C-alpha cells in the first residue's frame, strides 16, 4: 500500500507515491537522488542524516517521509545558493573540516542552523550544538574551527551581491 506525499526540497516541489514506512532519509536518497544526506546509525545518534524540516534540523533516519508531507525540507544540496558556497561550506574547505566526509552534511546543516540563531558562537556553544553528531575521524577540532571561520565570514558573505 502506498500513499501520495508532496514536499518542497531545497525549493523544488516533489510528489511521490511511497510506503508509509519509508524513512525520510531513504526518500531523499533513493526516491529523489539527493545523496548528499548520509544514512548512518539508524538510531538518531550519529547525526549524519541531519536535514532541515521547515526551519529546524532533524535526524531524518527516525522520521517517516510521510511525516514531512506538506513541509519544506532543506538538505546539504540546498546550502549553495546561485553557485556560491555557503560560508559554512567554505569554512569546511578553509579549515579542513572533513577527512572522510561522512558526517559532513549533517555537521554543516546543524552549523548553518546554529549560525542563523547565534551568529557569533564561542567554542563551547559550537561543541554543544554538534554534540548530537559523531565524527569517527575525530576531526572535531577542525570542525569547530570551520564553523568559527563561517561565523567570522558570515556577514561579509551576506553583504556581497
Amino acid at each position, binding site marked *: 500500500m502506498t500513499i501520495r506525499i508532496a514536499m518542497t526540497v531545497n525549493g523544488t516541489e516533489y510528489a511521490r507515491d511511497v510506503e508509509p514506512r519509508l524513512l525520510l532519509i531513504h526518500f531523499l536518497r533513493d526516491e529523489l537522488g539527493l545523496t548528499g544526506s548520509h544514512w548512518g546509525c539508524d538510531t538518531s545518534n550519529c547525526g549524519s542524516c541531519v536535514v532541515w524540516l521547515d526551519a529546524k534540523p532533524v535526524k531524518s533516519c527516525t522520521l517517516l517521509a510521510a511525516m514531512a508531507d506538506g513541509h519544506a525540507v532543506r538538505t546539504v544540496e540546498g546550502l549553495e545558493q546561485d553557485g556560491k558556497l555557503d560560508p559554512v561550506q567554505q569554512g569546511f574547505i578553509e579549515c579542513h573540516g572533513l577527512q572522510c566526509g561522512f558526517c559532513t552534511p549533517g555537521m554543516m546543516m546543524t552549523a548553518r542552523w546554529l549560525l542563523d540563531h547565534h551568529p557569533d558562537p564561542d567554542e563551547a556553544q559550537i561543541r554543544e550544538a554538534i*554534540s548530537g553528531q559523531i565524527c569517527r575521524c575525530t576531526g572535531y577540532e577542525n570542525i569547530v574551527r570551520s564553523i568559527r571561520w563561517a561565523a567570522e565570514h558570515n556577514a561579509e558573505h551576506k553583504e556581497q551581491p
Partner: protein
Amino acid sequence: MQVPAHVEYERAVSVEHALSLLGRPETRVVAGGHSLIPMMKLRLAQPELLVDINGLAELAFIAKDGDQLRIGALARHADLLDSKVAGQHFPIFHDAERVVADPIVRLWGTVGGSLCQADPSEDLSAAFAAARATAVIKTPDGERTVPVREFHLGPYETVVGRGELLAEVRVPIRPGTGSAYEKVSRRVGDWSIAAAGAVLQLQDGIMKQAGIGLTAVGAEHFVAAEAEDYLRGRAADHDTFTRAADIAAEHCHPAADQRGPEDYKRHLVAELTLRALHRAAKRATAESTA
C-alpha cells in the same frame, strides 16, 4: 539496513480525530519518533497504524495558569528548555532538559512522548514525579487526570489506554519551592547511569513538602518515597539531606548492566540526591527572599 515493517499512517487533524483513530487496536501515536521508530526498525514495536499528532498545535504550549504550570504533550524538549516561565518556577525542568539527548533531538522530541515511552532511563519522568505533576489524558468520553506517580505501570507501559491520548501535564506551583536535577551519564547525550531530582517546599527552614525523583535505578514510579517521608517536617540542613540521600539509595533497585554495577549506582543515587537536595533548598531560599 533497518526499516520498519509495513504500517499504515494517518495524520490527526484534531484531538477528537486522533482519539477516533486511536480506538483501533495496535495503533501508536507518533510525534518525535526518536524512540518509537528505532523500536519499529528492531521489531520491538510493530504497530499496524501510526497516528501522527505533529499537526495538533493545540497540544504545543507551555503556560502558567493560576497556581499551575501547564505543559502540552506536544511541547518540544527545546521549548521546555527555552521556557522562561518553566525555568522560573521549576528549574528542575531546565536542569533535566539540558541533559536529555542532544540539541537536535530536543528540537523535535516531545515532552509527552518522553512520558509515554516510559523508558526507565528517561529523565522527565523522574522530574515530573518529583514535582508531583498530574497527567491529563483525553478519552473518548472527555478527559481524566492521573498523578504522574501513577502514570507508569512499568517499563514501556503507561495507564494511557486504547482510544486515549496524553494531552498535557500540570505541575502545581507552590510558594517557597526550589528544585534541581542531577545526572551522571557516560558521555554527553547518553542515558543516565543514575539521576536524581528534588523539589522542596520550605517554610521557615522546615520542609513542608519534599519530592525526590530517581531515574534508571528501579525506583517504583521513579520516586524515593521513604526518603520523602523522612524529609517532610524536618529542617533543611546537611545532616538531614545526607540521611535522606542514604535512604533513597537503600530503597531503590538498580540493576547491574553495561553502565555499571549495582553498588556504584547506589553510590550515585546517594551522591546525586544529596546534591539535588542542596541545590533545591538553595533555590527555594532564593525564591522566598526574592
